[in-house]
């Protein structure tokens, strides 16, 4: 394995091969697919562009690959301006969603395709190493049609990696695989990226896939980057309602600022008083949407577990309880009509609270985040995954 990584990564690692996208806009007619996007992907990182379909992530990728031309802006790899360079003149290779393997060539020739075009020496050794890296050593003489979807996916990866590109683009590479294989390939991809040390730019609409693999995620929506950061930052401290809802689930509650005490902000929520760290507040106005993740909330029957240190919302009624094994997911209707979601870990204390039970909700003030109250609280809610949207009161 290490042999393979040396073989492909040799000689071209010069550190200065960051991918820099500067103020890029792409219009198709009057439709703006990518809107004034700026982004730097450091050399050697695993970067994910995450967003729903139509958010401009694939268009961004195609512009980096040279398959689309930006309407405005520039794309640089290291010091080389590739904005309008032909695809075959860029140090960039792509793993296509459909794999796009050449059906008339065997696996060896598919992987060797890029090397042969550049008149590379030692084609055989490099191709063998690349096939070894994706664990398809014995498949060189087969035709793509004779391989399974997962194997074709690996060939597509080997075919791109073998060229040792400055940037490797992955366009929803796991989209066509079934769930189990997808999990396996996520780990595999991460291993390969670590091993060869190439820059991976991975486009996906699957938040879990992005969080599992990427060092840095850019969440895209409507052609813009909503937020950029590592998976933990994005999850714990989303700065927009879109990110709060698109990555995992959030309870977003309308509130207004009543004052500050020390490093905390005092808030009023439908008659209740809450606090949160000033540092986690986004939005300068007094009208805020405060958010808390469902697994941060502790649920208990009314009157129990009172704790002055915690944020409290009292007087809820359980409307739905679904036991999922690891946790129980509750929907709790609050006095002002909003339903909040609570994930309670099944750690063995107490049974499942039946619907109709009067409950109080509590959480650590430090787990609260606040967003600008003018944002759409429903943005980024994924309805297709069976997740219950959390309406806002």
């Amino acid at each position, binding site marked *: 394995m290490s042999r393979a990584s040396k073989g492909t990564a040799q000689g071209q690692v010069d550190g200065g091969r960051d991918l820099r996208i500067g103020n890029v806009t792409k219009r198709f007619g009057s439709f703006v697919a990518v809107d004034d996007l700026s982004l730097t992907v450091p050399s050697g990182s695993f970067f994910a562009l995450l967003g729903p379909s139509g958010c401009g992530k694939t268009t961004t990728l195609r512009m980096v*690959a*040279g*398959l689309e031309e930006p309407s405005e802006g520039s794309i640089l790899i290291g010091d080389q301006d590739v904005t309008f360079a*032909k*695809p*075959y003149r860029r140090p*960039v*290779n*792509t793993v*296509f969603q*459909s794999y*796009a*393997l*050449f*059906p*008339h060539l065997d696996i060896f020739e598919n992987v060797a*395709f*890029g090397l042969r*075009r*550049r008149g590379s020496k030692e084609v055989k050794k490099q191709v063998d190493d690349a096939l070894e890296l994706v664990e398809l050593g014995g498949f060189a003489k087969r035709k793509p049609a004779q391989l399974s979807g997962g194997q074709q996916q690996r060939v597509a990866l080997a*075919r*791109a990696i073998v*060229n040792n590109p400055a940037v490797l683009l992955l366009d929803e590479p796991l989209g066509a695989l079934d769930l189990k294989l997808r999990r396996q390939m996520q780990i595999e991809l991460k291993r390969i990226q670590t091993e060869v040390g190439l820059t991976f730019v991975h486009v996906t609409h699957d938040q879990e896939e992005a969080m599992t693999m990427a060092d840095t995620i850019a969440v895209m929506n409507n052609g813009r980057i909503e937020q950029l950061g590592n998976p933990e930052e994005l999850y714990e401290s989303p700065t927009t309602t879109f990110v709060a809802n698109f990555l995992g689930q959030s309870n977003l509650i309308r509130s207004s600022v009543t004052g500050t005490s020390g490093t905390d902000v005092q808030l009023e929520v439908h008659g209740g008083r809450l606090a949160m760290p000033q540092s986690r507040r986004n939005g300068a106005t007094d009208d805020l949407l405060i958010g808390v993740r469902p697994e941060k909330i502790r649920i208990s029957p009314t009157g129990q577990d009172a704790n002055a240190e915690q944020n409290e919302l009292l007087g809820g009624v359980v409307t739905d309880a679904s036991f999922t094994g690891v946790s129980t997911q509750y929907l709790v209707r609050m006095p002002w009509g909003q339903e909040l979601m609570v994930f309670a870990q099944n750690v063995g204390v107490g049974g499942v609270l039946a619907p109709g039970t009067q409950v109080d909700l509590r959480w650590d003030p430090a787990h609260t985040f606040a967003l600008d109250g003018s944002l759409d609280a429903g943005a980024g809610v994924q309805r297709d995954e069976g997740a219950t949207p959390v309406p806002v009161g």
Partner: protein
Amino acid sequence: MTVAAGIGLGERQAGAGAPPPAVTERRSRRKLTPYLLLVPGMAWLAIFFIAPIVTLLSTSTQTRPEGAEIGVFTQTFRFANYLDALEGYGPEFGRSFLYALLATVLALAISYPLAYAIAFKAGRWRNLLLVLVVAPFFVSFLLRTVAWKQILADDAWVADLLRALSVIGPQTHIINSAPAVVIGITYNFLPFMILPIYASLERVDPRLMEAAGDLYSSALTTFRKVTIPLSMPGIVAGTLLTFIPAAGDYVNSALLGNKDTTMVGNVIDSRFLRVVDYPTAAVLSVTLMASILVLVGFYIRRAGTEELV
């Protein structure tokens, strides 16, 4: 077939003794079904292909007895008929294959870009263009060729234009010449070239071309290394569909050529219908057929598209 065989095997393993009569009957009927389905086609081929071929072969070695009436021949197994005919009509054979080859190459050169444009660039005009490709078939083959007689005539605009541009001299004719015959053949078989090439290009995934570009291929290299190999089945089918009938064609030479452009087809035509020399006509037909078969065999092997077709 595979299923039937599998069942048969299973039965043999399960019951060591003879299977019950009902099963045997059903099994034998199932085995017979494919052959029964073949009967109509086989019968058709036997009556209208194999029988005439036998007659043709038999006629080719017949001779006309001394003093017999016109059109009466007896079987004498005179294989020297073949030598006589090949000696006498060598140039006609040569021309047939030369014209057919030129027409095939020309048709390919015209058809490939056209099929490519229809497959990848035509957008919503695609169906209309395909109809236009087939449209000439609504007019008889003969009429279309006669039309070329007028287009290529000495006083028509093509000749005028070429003379004005000094491409041809003032006394040169286009009509009744070898080029006119090749032009006619090319034109007449064009759709047979365009349609198969279009059909195979249309199935080429454009994303493969993007992938080739991504892997350092210029547009030209992508065309050479991806597009052409993937459209090979269409090219092979198109060239065969053009070359085979073109080699046997006689209408174009008769209408657009002169006495020095005679092809084998013309000789067969006149031997059969005018001279009433059936053995010679049969010899030429058999030889033409055999040589096309050999050429096509070599060609397909060279093209190496067995697994793609």
